């Protein structure tokens, strides 16, 4: 890790992202108020240099939107995002541009995130060509070194290939090389291994761990898979319906979850474990599918411990034990 390891790179304060969905033509003719989709609601978090923070949640929980807002691919509806102390959410587009190179994204599908007509060399060199004016030789050296750095070795064997000539795992390595070639401070990796076979996925996870150790990059690792999150990250944040409901050290969150939602999630994760039988937490899926909390905690319909308070007020994320927080009245209510 770099000398300043541990200092905050990204800080989000009260971030919200709301969408006004397209209504059908009939609905808009009939008028009435459109529902607002609150994809991200009041999220505050910090990511430190050299840290991997996993963002875990089910589909529709808002984890991808949060990743896009943190890298300013989408502007937040409210709240602030600081990169090394600079508030990016307030910058004009022109000013923001100069900061973009410091934040990069690796997407889920390496079959779609690379231009099929670009050679690997061009794909990885492009960010450098846009941002730095390098001599041809230096450009070549940087790209070749980067490819070797992500395990595409020897680089000469890959430089002039096209994405279609590479396997899924190799393509994802190219996508990582492209994201890291500008030496960013912060990388959002959105489900980067969920389309890959396990024998390939584990190699990508190890690569990210190695790169983090070598370059000190901060990662937000978005995943639906708690086992992957546990393996790769220092801390895990659990997201439910746009809010972070629990955040803490990866080992603690997966071994001693405190939020009822995290407990439900963990009780449903299959594991290769011949010694202990999982205890299933029962939850009412049908209600959960339909009900949207108008007021109070959004988990109230599935939660086995609902208090009166939960129906009226949204619990805020509070530290329950050192470095481990949960948004649940179980830990703050007088009960």
């Amino acid at each position, binding site marked *: 890790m770099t000398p300043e390891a541990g200092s905050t790179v990204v800080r989000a304060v009260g971030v919200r992202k709301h969408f006004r969905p397209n209504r059908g033509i009939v609905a808009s003719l009939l008028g009435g108020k459109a529902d607002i989709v609150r994809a991200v609601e009041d999220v505050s978090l910090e990511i430190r240099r050299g840290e991997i923070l996993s963002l875990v949640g089910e589909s529709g929980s808002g984890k991808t939107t949060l990743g896009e807002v943190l890298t300013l691919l989408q502007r937040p509806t409210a709240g602030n995002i600081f990169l090394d102390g600079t508030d990016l959410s307030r910058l004009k587009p022109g000013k923001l541009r100069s900061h973009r190179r410091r934040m990069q994204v690796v997407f889920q599908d390496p079959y779609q995130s690379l231009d099929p007509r670009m050679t690997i060399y061009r794909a990885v060199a492009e960010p450098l060509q846009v941002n730095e004016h390098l001599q041809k030789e230096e450009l070549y050296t940087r790209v070749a070194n980067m490819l070797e750095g992500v395990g595409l070795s020897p680089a000469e064997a890959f430089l002039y290939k096209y994405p279609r000539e590479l396997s899924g795992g190799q393509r994802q390595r190219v996508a990582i090389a492209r994201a890291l070639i500008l030496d960013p401070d912060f990388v959002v990796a959105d489900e980067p291994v969920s389309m890959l076979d396990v024998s390939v996925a584990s*190699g990508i996870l190890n690569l990210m761990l190695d790169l983090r150790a070598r370059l000190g990059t901060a990662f937000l690792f978005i995943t639906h898979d708690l086992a992957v999150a546990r393996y790769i990250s220092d801390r895990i944040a659990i997201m439910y319906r746009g809010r972070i409901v629990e955040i803490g050290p990866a080992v603690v969150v997966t071994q001693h979850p405190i939020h009822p939602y995290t407990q439900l999630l963990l009780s*449903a994760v*299959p594991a290769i474990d011949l010694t202990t039988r999982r205890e299933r937490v029962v939850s009412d899926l049908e209600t959960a599918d339909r009900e949207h909390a108008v007021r109070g905690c959004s988990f109230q319909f599935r939660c086995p411990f609902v208090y009166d308070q939960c129906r009226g007020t949204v619990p805020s994320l509070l530290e329950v034990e050192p470095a481990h927080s949960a948004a649940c009245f179980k830990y703050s209510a007088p009960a």
Partner: protein
Amino acid sequence: MTLDIRDLRLDYALPGGLSVRALDGVDLRIDDDEIVGLVGESGCGKSTLAYSILRVLPENADIVEGRILYRNRDLIGLSEGRMRNIRWSKISMVFQSSMNAFSPVHRIVDQLAAVHMAHTGSDKRAALKVAEKALTRMGIPASRTWSYPHEFSGGMRQRAAIALALLLDPEILIADEPTTALDVVIQDRILQIIQDWQRESGRSVIFVSHDMAVVAEICDRIAVMYAGLVVELADKVDLLKEPRHPYTQALLDCVPNVKGRGSRLQSLSGSPPDLRQRHEGCLFRPRCAKAFADCATVKPDLFEVGDRHPARCLLYRPEAS
């Protein structure tokens, strides 16, 4: 035994007269009252094997050799009409995209009832009753069985698809990645539904998955497939405790465990063999950490090691040969 697959070889024809050998001599027996997992990575042939049992293969597939004996009748030679009597009523299937297979303009309960009427000749009233019961058995509330597919979440539609697969009380259920696109809580519910049905009915399930943890959770026996072959077959506990084939060993070392101890995961270098070509020796050899000279030339059999735990690896070749 319910199903006995013997030496099944299947090619997919490619443009230009080429072909891919997707199954290269699969032997597998499915007994009554068990869940057998077929596990392996993409392209290993696990889905092809599942589809070939029901003969719902793409047009370019060609079963070159082998037999699929269902209660001592070979399904491969069966006429399409005879096959139709077996398909769904005796052997049915649920797959990853089943939840998207419902017609959007008909109520789910009507679609189930239509299948029941077509197969059993029941009248509409009786069929609707059966359909409703099948849906509520999957945990879908009675008040919602008259919904249209778009009114269901993905998890509910997949449960309706399982209800449809179990509607005619089949002897074998083939489940091909039935939970792959679903969230973990819903996945867990669906695994439980399949397991409960199997335990209560004493029927057989063939469960196809890429996910070792899911297979470990639900299956009694596990068949590991690689490059169109079953490379190891054993009771779940034996296979997980003492994997024999180097591929199974490597695969298990690649899977992160949510209760894991934090040791570094392994990964496999190289890629699976190009099945358009014929290969000498063991297909896993180029990626195998334990390969020795013979592996390049001798094709390993599925060597029985005496305790119902065969492995297709020369390490287990009997001394005499």
